[in-house]
């Protein structure tokens, strides 16, 4: 029997922002499979024109409520690049610590609240809490810890205040940092429980692979998060400033978010892309978890992004402990550099939870923006999601038992695996 | 080496590293301890006001709780806040008290949601009172506007229970509309009491209203005042006592024989939070009952 499918998901749930899935299969033949972003446009780049450099980071944080720290970091980095500012070491460490904390809170949120319910056949984490309170208790502990670190280091969890052009506004109190180090230490036990839990769920990861190009920062000595060269699994390497050659944004009529491409029709960014490009730089503790799930580069199953996030959580936790130790050793270290505005252009690339993020600004000599451009991870993923969706539907509609519900779940899970940040991609 | 700080003379047997434990000092502790009280009855008076009959739970505390007409308590709805409320019942009832409360803001609204049996806290009684004993042997005018009837009820009960100690007694009460009249079910009782002149007036009558119409000062028209042997207690909004007391003064009543109850924001009842401060005067300690002469002398009192 040939299947007929008709799926129309208007405003997909458990993702950030507004996107639609449309699938039509007639007598086993794929007619249409679409991923459309219908989020309202906000014109951030247009608003940025004429704004003072001190406004840019605080403003662009508002592009996204989940990765506001990442946006702020990319923004100040672009400005510092334009002005030729070198930030103090301690500031760089604080920024990276804030970045890790944001990665952790975002990944935990995604894994437990957005993705896990699908694997357990539940509508949401509220139901999960009723059924399995211990799991949610662990999730809340882990997420709360990550948010606490953001609060301390960046001044606030959402929309940071302490990340300024030139460095970080202040060094957190040493005692408070050390208290978090303690908690991170203790969270390792929770994390191994979580690894066990997801191991049990891993057989439910759909068997689907499509050869894809993966783009991320390229680490040299460390698994990369802030700045550096750009690389793809197809062998393209570019500098941070050449990011446009890496993204090739273009506008499509149906979408308010743009699409991107590189060596092929589309490419993917995110945790999976980072691991595919930098597997060797993971901390051994994280690499072991990757092995446990059989995650080896280059992995082409988009659903494995969830596993990649878990691996990164392990990595970031260990790295945060290291950073706190280093910071606590010198609590009086300066955290701000002098900032002298000058005319010029700069780019900041930062690996936010959902993939690589670029900000680029041009300044006049008074430190006001003349041109701004932000390229968001989900923008880079959109085309890939769309193409994945076509292949996914094609593959699974061959199954004579396929139903609308099953296909809808597969499609929704696919999109959620990318953890799209839709309002962010339309900014 | 460890340091042994010697404490102040209050407690001789501890030192600074063994801190002085004020939690065990009962006298001080009672300063902000509340009596737990149970709401025994709730009487709906109007859309906005309810009468809460409450009873201090502990027998001994209930017996010990005494107050004088005009005093108030800090009524606590745990978790939502504490508000000053005049005691609106007879002083002879001790720890069985009545509070007439208008829905005004957070605490009062939450309280209006409460059911019979709910437990609240009360601290007090606080503040000054109407000098009832001093009034013995005189005529008394008890005048209330609107919610002013609530604080007026305590002196009213006192006068009724001690009717022999007073000469002429007038109760004058006015509200804006008939549906705002409080304690309607008690008017009959009051007017039946031997020789009490109860008069009620509303500003804006409705179809059901058969009584008098006008401002409360109108009720004074048919009253004769003997300045040397009359006292007046006036409760209501500040504008009202400006008019009523002014009128009484014209009629010859000296200002120090008129008593009013002032309202200010309060958060402690103990002269600490300063919210009720008028110049150098704390409404919660030096008031709420003032004679009208003091009120006129307080800067920005009304």
């Amino acid at each position, binding site marked *: 029997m040939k299947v007929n499918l008709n799926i129309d998901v208007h405003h997909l749930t458990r993702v950030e922002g507004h996107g639609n899935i449309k699938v039509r299969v007639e007598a086993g033949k794929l007619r249409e499979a679409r991923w459309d972003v219908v989020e309202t446009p906000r014109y951030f780049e247009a608003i940025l024109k004429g704004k003072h450099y001190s406004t840019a980071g605080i403003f662009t944080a508002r592009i996204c409520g989940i990765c506001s720290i990442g946006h702020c970091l990319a923004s100040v980095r672009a400005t510092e690049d334009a002005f030729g500012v070198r930030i103090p070491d301690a500031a760089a460490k604080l920024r990276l610590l804030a970045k890790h904390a944001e990665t952790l809170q975002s990944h935990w949120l995604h894994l437990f609240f957005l993705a896990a319910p699908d694997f357990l056949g539940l509508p949401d984490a509220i139901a999960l809490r009723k059924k399995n309170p211990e799991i949610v208790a662990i999730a809340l502990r882990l997420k709360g810890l990550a948010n606490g670190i953001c609060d301390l280091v960046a001044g606030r969890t959402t929309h940071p205040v302490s990340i300024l052009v030139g460095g970080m506004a202040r060094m957190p109190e040493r005692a408070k940092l050390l208290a978090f180090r303690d908690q991170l230490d203790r969270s390792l036990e929770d994390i191994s429980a979580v690894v066990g839990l997801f191991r049990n769920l891993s057989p439910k990861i759909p068997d689907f692979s499509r050869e894809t190009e993966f783009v991320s920062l390229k680490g040299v000595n460390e698994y990369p998060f802030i700045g550096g060269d750009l690389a793809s699994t197809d062998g393209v390497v570019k500098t941070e400033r050449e990011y446009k050659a890496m993204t090739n944004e273009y506008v499509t009529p149906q979408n308010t978010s743009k699409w991107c491409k590189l060596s092929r029709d589309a490419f993917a960014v995110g945790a999976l892309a980072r691991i595919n490009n930098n597997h060797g730089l993971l901390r051994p503790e994280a690499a072991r978890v990757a092995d446990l799930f059989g995650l080896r580069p280059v992995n082409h199953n988009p659903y494995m992004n969830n596993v990649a996030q878990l691996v990164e959580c392990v990595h970031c936790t260990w790295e945060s402990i290291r950073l706190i130790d280093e910071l606590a050793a010198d609590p009086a270290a300066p955290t701000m550099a002098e900032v002298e505005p000058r005319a010029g252009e700069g780019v900041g690339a930062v690996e936010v939870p959902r993939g690589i993020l670029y900000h680029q600004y041009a300044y006049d000599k008074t430190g006001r923006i003349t041109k701004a451009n932000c390229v968001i991870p989900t923008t880079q993923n959109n085309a890939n999601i769309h193409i994945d969706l076509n292949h996914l539907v094609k593959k699974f509609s061959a199954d004579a038992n396929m139903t609308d519900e099953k296909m809808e779940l597969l499609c929704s899970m696919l999109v959620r695996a990318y953890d799209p940040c839709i309002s962010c991609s339309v900014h | 080496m460890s*340091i042994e700080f010697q404490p102040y003379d209050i407690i001789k047997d501890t030192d*600074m590293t063994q801190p002085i434990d004020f939690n065990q000092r009962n006298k001080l502790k009672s300063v902000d301890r509340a009596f737990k009280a149970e709401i025994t009855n709730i009487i709906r008076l109007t859309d906005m006001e309810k009468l809460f009959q409450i009873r201090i739970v502990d027998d001994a505390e209930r017996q010990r709780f005494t107050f004088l007409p005009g005093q108030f308590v800090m009524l606590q709805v745990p*978790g939502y806040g504490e508000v000053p409320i005049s005691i609106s019942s007879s002083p002879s009832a001790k720890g069985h008290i009545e509070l007439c409360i208008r829905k005004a803001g957070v605490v009062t609204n939450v309280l209006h949601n409460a059911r019979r049996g*709910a437990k609240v*806290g009360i601290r007090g009684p606080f503040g000054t009172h109407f000098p009832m004993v001093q009034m013995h042997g005189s005529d008394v005018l008890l005048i209330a506007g609107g919610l002013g009837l609530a604080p007026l009820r305590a002196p009213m009960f006192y006068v009724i229970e001690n009717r022999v100690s007073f000469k002429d007694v007038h109760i004058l009460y006015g509200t804006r509309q008939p549906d705002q009249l409080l304690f309607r079910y008690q008017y009959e009782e009051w007017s039946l009491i031997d020789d009490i002149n109860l008069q009620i007036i509303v500003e804006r009558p409705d179809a059901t209203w058969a009584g008098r119409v006008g401002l409360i000062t109108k009720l004074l028209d048919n009253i004769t005042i003997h300045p040397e042997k009359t006292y007046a207690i006036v409760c209501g909004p500040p504008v009202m006592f400006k008019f009523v007391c002014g009128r009484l003064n014209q009629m010859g009543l000296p200002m120090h024989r008129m008593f009013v109850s002032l309202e200010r*924001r309060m958060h402690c009842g103990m002269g600490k939070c*300063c919210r009720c*401060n008028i110049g150098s005067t704390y409404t919660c300690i030096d008031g709420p009952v003032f004679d009208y002469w003091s009120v006129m002398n307080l800067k920005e009192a009304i």
Partner: protein
Amino acid sequence: MLFKILYKDDFRTLIETAMKSVEVVAPKKVGSNARGKPIHHYLPVTSFEEIDLSYETTEYSAKTYFIPYLENLANYRFGDEDWEKEIQYRFEPRMILGLHACDISGLLRLDKVLIHDKFPSPYYIARRKNTLIVGIDHEPCEGGFCHALGTNVVSHGFDLFLTDLGDRYFTAIDSDRGYILLNKVLTHDVKEKDTKDYLDARRRISDAYTTHVNVHNLPNLLDIEFESDVWKKWGAKCLSCGSCAQVCPTCYCYGVSERVSMDWASGAKVKQLYSCNLVDFAQVAGGHNFRPEATTRLKYRYYHQHRGFVEIYDEPKCVGCNRCGRTCLAGINPPDIIGELQAEVRK
């Protein structure tokens, strides 16, 4: 009063030993302002190096260690039909090091209201009695007018009081607790030269005051000038932000609010210091505000400080530290206001 000479090395030993058993709060430099002037706060310290006793003044007074900005007055536990209220007074001992005379005077003012008046505050007493105070003499601070109010010297209200004589401190002892503490380290009896140096130091300090404020007849003046244009002028500037009362060592007014937890199982009664300059200070339910304009609120603050308080406690509440004047963005400050009121009567 007893006096001893304490050499600075011994003083350091004393403080370092104290740190081992009690929390020590002392002036600490936290940064510099836009004009490069250092900013100090009284903060808990864990090493002697953090302490900067040569500070001029602090941005905040030390009152928060006695009447905290936020304080749980009581906690509740709720059951289905009933609740329990629990009151805890804080009583871990603490040492505050380096208070200036005006701040100690400030504490004496607070004592009057919170210990010696009707309804003493156990919350305050528990903190006050468990705090050991080590004061220190210093050069006058910019804008301070404590000498006009007589609060530049204190004869009690502390445990120890130090006057810097270069290599040693001339130490006044005002409590047996202070005496015992001092006996833990080496001290010396006061010699003639020490007394002479001490008196020289005192004289040098009292000659150094530059801000002059005439507080003569101020209570009376405030009554007479109740409707003065001085209030209108400064009132128009007031932002009603309440900063002045927060940094003031003697402002103690507050608001109370209560909280209940999301599971309705517990709650708290929380006191928050307030300010009479804030819009709703005297506003009651239903919206009536007894002091709706910034002008009347500002006037009220001065009226309470220099008139109302005098009436009850025989001295002004203000101790002349001028922290309110320094913190005020609008530049509202007591020397100017009092000066203008005095000028007004002379007109």
